[in-house]
């Protein structure tokens, strides 16, 4: 027993696992790699063995690195094993024991510095101007990038960053909602944020811009940079506390999950845990609000559609039925269940960049199911999944037959909100 590791790894939680194997068919990496070490049961056992000295930390690396952190295993686990906690401690311990990965360095550069974000916007904006796009595509400039970055760049939508001013204090409303925009979301899909706000306003809700909000800290958290994640959490809590709102709403499955776990993240911080609990109570996904509203769904959408849930919306935020409830209400829409719908698409934050090949295997499996249903529309609930599904559609040369839309865009269309 390594006394140092027993403090750092969640050894006790590993005993909740009775190794029944119910998690195996829920795990995207087990389904594609077919090796026990790439299953939740295998990973939990490796963490346990590391504490017991039966395996070394380096023996954990591959298995832990290739975990998407989708946490579908927690949802199906019959004995309620807190895989997320076990996984998180393993990521953290591994991080201490080796140099930061280049990719995670790049990500933190982007996410922690606003000027880097601005630069990125500018670069992407340039890429998406018709001239540059043509120039880059024709000269095959993207081909010199590794596959993973090249392919991602090709599917990135044009950058639209026009802040919509939504604070209208003079209107009297029944419900007041603070809106969390998210950094990646606001870079690539600010139109979706804007549409979400317009839909809410069209349904008699006052939406307030929480001006000092910052990155939710999900990527830092997943990379094991707990201090940074905590700092960001505190900044967001402070930002929201300045406003009197009923809910804090977002349209990003992944970020929402990060926000909703602030109470867990700060549970040992006596100064912050109460405030975090109050914060968490207000965090809601947009689909939950939609489901509660009597949506004015006037327009028909005559398409066969499937829904690819965000793992963190389901497995962390516990939002399962609401998006489908909303989708089923839309007139004209033929909703079909995607086989293996609840299995991750392989996007998982920056997983599809860091672990490109593993991610593409998972995506290919996903796309074989999509092709069986032959939808005209894939509905998503998180920007990462959205991009991954776009990539899947592109890889299969189905861009002309399948559209990928966020649930907010679909509801906006059905409500006639533009």
């Amino acid at each position, binding site marked *: 027993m390594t006394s140092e590791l027993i403090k750092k790894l969640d050894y006790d939680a590993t*005993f909740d696992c009775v190794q029944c194997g119910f998690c*195996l*068919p829920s795990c995207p990496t087990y389904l594609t790699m*077919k*090796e*026990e070490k790439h299953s939740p049961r295998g990973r939990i056992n490796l963490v346990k063995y590391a504490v017991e000295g039966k395996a070394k930390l380096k023996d954990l690396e591959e298995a832990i690195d290739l975990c998407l952190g989708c946490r579908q295993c927690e949802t199906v686990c019959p*004995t309620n094993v807190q895989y997320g906690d076990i996984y998180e401690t393993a990521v953290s311990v591994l991080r201490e024991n080796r140099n930061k990965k280049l990719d995670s360095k790049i990500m933190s550069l982007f996410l922690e510095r606003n000027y880097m974000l601005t630069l990125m916007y500018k670069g992407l904006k340039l890429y998406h101007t018709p001239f540059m796009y043509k120039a880059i595509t024709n000269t095959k400039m993207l081909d010199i990038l590794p596959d993973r970055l090249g392919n991602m760049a090709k599917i990135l939508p044009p950058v639209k960053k026009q802040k919509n001013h939504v604070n209208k204090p003079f209107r009297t409303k029944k419900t007041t909602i603070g809106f969390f925009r998210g950094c990646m979301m606001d870079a690539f899909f600010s139109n979706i944020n804007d549409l979400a706000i317009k839909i809410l306003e069209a349904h008699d809700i006052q939406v307030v811009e929480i001006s000092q909000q910052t990155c939710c800290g999900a990527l830092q958290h997943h990379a094991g940079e707990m201090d940074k994640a905590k700092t960001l959490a505190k900044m967001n809590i402070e930002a929201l506390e300045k406003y009197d709102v009923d809910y804090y709403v977002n349209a990003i499955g992944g970020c929402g999950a990060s926000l909703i776990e602030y109470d867990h993240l700060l549970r040992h911080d006596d100064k912050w845990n109460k405030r975090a609990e109050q914060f968490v109570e207000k965090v809601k996904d947009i689909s939950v609000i939609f489901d509660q509203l009597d949506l004015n769904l006037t327009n028909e959408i005559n398409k066969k559609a499937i829904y690819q849930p965000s793992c963190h919306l389901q497995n962390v935020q516990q939002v399962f039925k609401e998006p489908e409830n909303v989708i089923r209400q839309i007139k004209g829409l033929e909703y079909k269940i995607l086989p293996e719908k609840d299995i991750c698409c392989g996007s998982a934050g920056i997983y599809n960049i860091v672990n490109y090949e593993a991610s593409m295997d998972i995506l290919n499996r996903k796309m074989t199911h999509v092709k069986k249903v032959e939808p005209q529309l894939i509905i998503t609930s998180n920007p990462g999944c959205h991009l991954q599904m776009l990539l899947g559609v592109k890889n299969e040369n189905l861009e002309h037959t399948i559209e990928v839309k966020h649930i907010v865009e679909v509801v906006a269309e059905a409500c006639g909100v533009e």
Partner: protein
Amino acid sequence: MEELFVALQDALKKGHVSKEVADLSSYSYDASFGEYMPDIICQPMSTDEVVKIVKLSNQFDVPIYPRGSGTSLSGGPLPVNGGIVLDFSRWDNDITVYEDDLMMDVSPGVITAKIHEIAESYGLMYPPDPSSSSISTIGGNLAENAGGPRCLKYGVTKDYVVGLEIVTANGDVIRSGGRTVKNVTGYDMTKLMIGSEGTLGIITKATLQLIPKPIDTKTAMLQFDDFVTSGRAVSKILRSGILPSKIEIMDKYCVDAVLSTHPIEHVTNDAESVLLVELDGHPLALEAEMKVIEETCQALPGCKVIVARDKHQASELWEVRKLVSPAIVKFGPTKISEDTSVPVSQIPEFFKSIERIRQEFDLNLVVFGHAGDGNLHPNIITDKRKPEELKKAEQAVAEIFKASLKLGGTLSGEHGIGLFKKPFMYNEFDEAGMAFMKGVKKALDPNNRLNPGKIFPDENERFVLVHDE
């Protein structure tokens, strides 16, 4: 080992070979509580690759441990003597359906649920339904002769296997049976292999028999004031002229554990024992048959009957049974799950013994299971970090076996003997019976390389959960 590893790497072109610590660790356990490190992991993808592995294991004198998804509760696939773990879970995609013969050929790694799904897509059914069917491989089901709730009406795994391809201990490939329901040509090697726990040969292909899928099902829940009456009810129902597809039982501890976290409409926790009955067949017949069941049970003292009004309520009632396993672990993280079977008439007596054992050892001992065929799951819920409690559990397990055998029952109804029940083999068989089985093993695997250390106890072996350090 190094030389063998290199030779295996050369031999397996499509499969996968590893001796990384992460892999060895990952195949050192199953769903029981045993832990044994193997030396090499092989994931073969064809019969040819299995033959090569067997021949190399002979050449290097190393044991082979076949394995599926590792859901065994008896320690069946654990590599107790090190050597090679032969993991079939990667070879999960060779499936041929002979629709008009009602047969299906499968490779050993095919997941049981996939067989169910494919059969259903043809309007057919593969009846064996172990509760791990969404994870378990058919290879593991064959090795342990797996059961499940539906076995009451339809029989167990061995009743649906008509042919096998087997790699023998010396690396020959033989075929047993074929693609016909009837086949009495020569010894029935198919039935001998099924349930032999990987100790006599390695199954590389199975021909499964399918049957027409019943059109509909109907469910009733019976709640009893008294445990013993619920046991009697099973015989009553079976003698009423109706054969249900399932009769499951749960004691009050199980029902309490479930309802404390998942309240279910109409289900109260004041019953001492609960039976779930499912009928399958034509919808019109089901209506009439359910009336017979209702009348039969209402005649029993202290019995309350809930007949599910629709599919939704039926699945809600079944939810109680499905949640038993996860719900009872709230008593502790270590679950010692037995699967003893008794004659149906002896269920009431067996329940009395269980109650006595629970009180004598003061353990969290609960019972649920497949009452219709007498296959019950006494479960001791404990914590493997508490040695004094494990000592008591050891004694309680021995008492449970003693009680079952005394009533004409058996050690294992569907999990297999594997590692953890072998110390009790001499309680069920006498010297001559054991010698006969050992003779078979010796004839088919003279060098004891196929899953050694299972089924047959070592000399003077006794059951231990705690090893003195």
